[in-house]
């Protein structure tokens, strides 16, 4: 593992939830992982294994109690616009319109008003929400909310992008469009991406490295490197690609079965 020169270094990180009522839950267990600058890493694992928790720790929303996380050598002390996040459940401000949601981070960054508007519009157009600028989140479909959340985070151009199943609510066509869009953004202005997904094919297509997590408590079970030519239009049908997807599927499935097992006992 290329710890030297890595941008994000997670070292023996654990996280325990302590609900006020009920017993503590160990959600992340002894995770060590280094992510290089401008790397695109996918995080796969069965439901409930601690993927979101890991992103919350990286975002600085939950305190690091056991182990450490450093970004550019400095420990994380709290949230900041250097680490943008797209939440699994969108977390849009329900009292703000699509436009106001996307503009929020730009306003906080102190951009001049016309600059805010121009930039927000560009990202609204990018995610295909032209014409819905003045809609409130309650008037949007799940997929549209998700795209608004993506636009809001991309608009502030964070150095590190944390994405929690960002395409989970999208239909197949929109999902594929957004995947291509994300890749082209990443190629144009390279940033470090940590991308949580349930979709193995998506992970293999987008990421250069895939970390597979074990059933709860989440550990890193395997790290797989991939390098496919994404411009190949027949990529999804090519044998090496399909084999890779199958190989990773087997790993994830084994963990999912384990997760089922622990749940029923």
């Amino acid at each position, binding site marked *: 593992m290329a710890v030297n020169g890595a941008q994000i270094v997670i070292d023996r990180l654990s996280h325990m939830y302590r609900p006020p009522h009920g017993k503590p839950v160990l959600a992340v267990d002894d995770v060590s992982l280094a992510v290089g600058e401008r790397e695109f890493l996918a995080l796969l694992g069965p439901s409930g294994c601690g993927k979101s928790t890991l992103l919350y720790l990286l975002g600085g929303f939950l305190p690091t109690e056991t182990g450490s996380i450093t970004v550019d050598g400095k420990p994380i002390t709290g949230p900041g616009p250097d680490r943008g996040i797209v939440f699994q459940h969108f977390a849009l401000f329900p*009292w703000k319109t699509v436009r106001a949601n996307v503009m929020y981070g730009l306003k906080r960054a102190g951009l001049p008003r016309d600059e805010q508007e121009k930039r927000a519009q560009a990202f609204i157009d990018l995610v295909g929400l032209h014409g819905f600028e003045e809609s409130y989140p309650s*008037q949007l479909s799940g997929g549209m909310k998700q795209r608004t959340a993506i636009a809001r985070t991309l608009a502030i151009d964070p150095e590190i992008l944390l994405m929690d199943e960002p395409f989970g609510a999208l239909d197949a066509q929109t999902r594929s469009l957004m995947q291509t869009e994300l890749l082209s953004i990443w190629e144009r202005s390279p940033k470090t991406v940590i991308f949580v997904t349930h979709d193995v094919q998506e992970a293999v297509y987008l990421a250069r490295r895939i970390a597979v997590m074990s059933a709860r408590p989440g550990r890193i079970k395997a790290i797989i490197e991939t390098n496919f030519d994404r411009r190949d239009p027949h990529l999804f049908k090519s044998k090496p690609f399909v084999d890779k997807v199958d190989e990773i599927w087997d790993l994830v499935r084994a963990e999912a079965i384990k997760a089922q097992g622990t749940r029923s006992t």
Partner: protein
Amino acid sequence: MTAALSGVAFRYLPIVILAVLWQMASEFGWVSTAVLPPLSSVFEAGWGLITSDDFWVNAGASLYRGGVGLLLAIVIGAALGIGMAWWRPVRALLSPIVEIFYPLPKSALIPVTALWLGFGDASKILLIFLGCMLPVTIGAFNGARGSERTLVWSARSLGAGRLRTLWDVVVPSAMPELLNGVRTALALSWVLLVASELIVARAGLGYLIGFMGDGGNYDGMFAVVLFVALLGFIADRLYQMAMQRALRWRE
């Protein structure tokens, strides 16, 4: 437009029926006019009142006391409730006090504030402030406590500081419950105001009701009672309309 108007007319038809029954009751001698004066004479007395300066001086006194007391209750009550939700020490300090005073019948404070501040405006304002603050505080507290953590996190990761997040996320999250608390406070303020003026005051609509009742001017007394009811109704309708506008983001 006409459809909307006839809708409104239909909705308030029971009020019209009630008014007709009232008039008939005294017309046909079902009840003594000493107990219930005919509605027509009440209206007549009401017309006499609203064309007199004296009436508006009293109405102005009531509205001033109610308005200032309520405004203080809303501003301070909301700040306390949100403060309790956001800062643990504030919660530890205030929540037992709120819990103990919340069930207190607020009218019990009428003699207390009169003792402290006398018979004038100040005692009424203090009464309404103290009596109406807790529903606002509790609404603001519950609303702010219920703000989703991922919304707070979103704001923080989009570059908002802690205070900014309080204003941009916690306050709007608290708004629906806060505004409901204010609605309760609005109704309560009217009750407290009229009751306190009836008991200890030298001006105000409540005072006018008592004064006319004591002087045997029952037509006038009923007219003021109706006026007070109408004012309360209008205030509530206006408030509800404003609230719907403020919360139009909710579907």
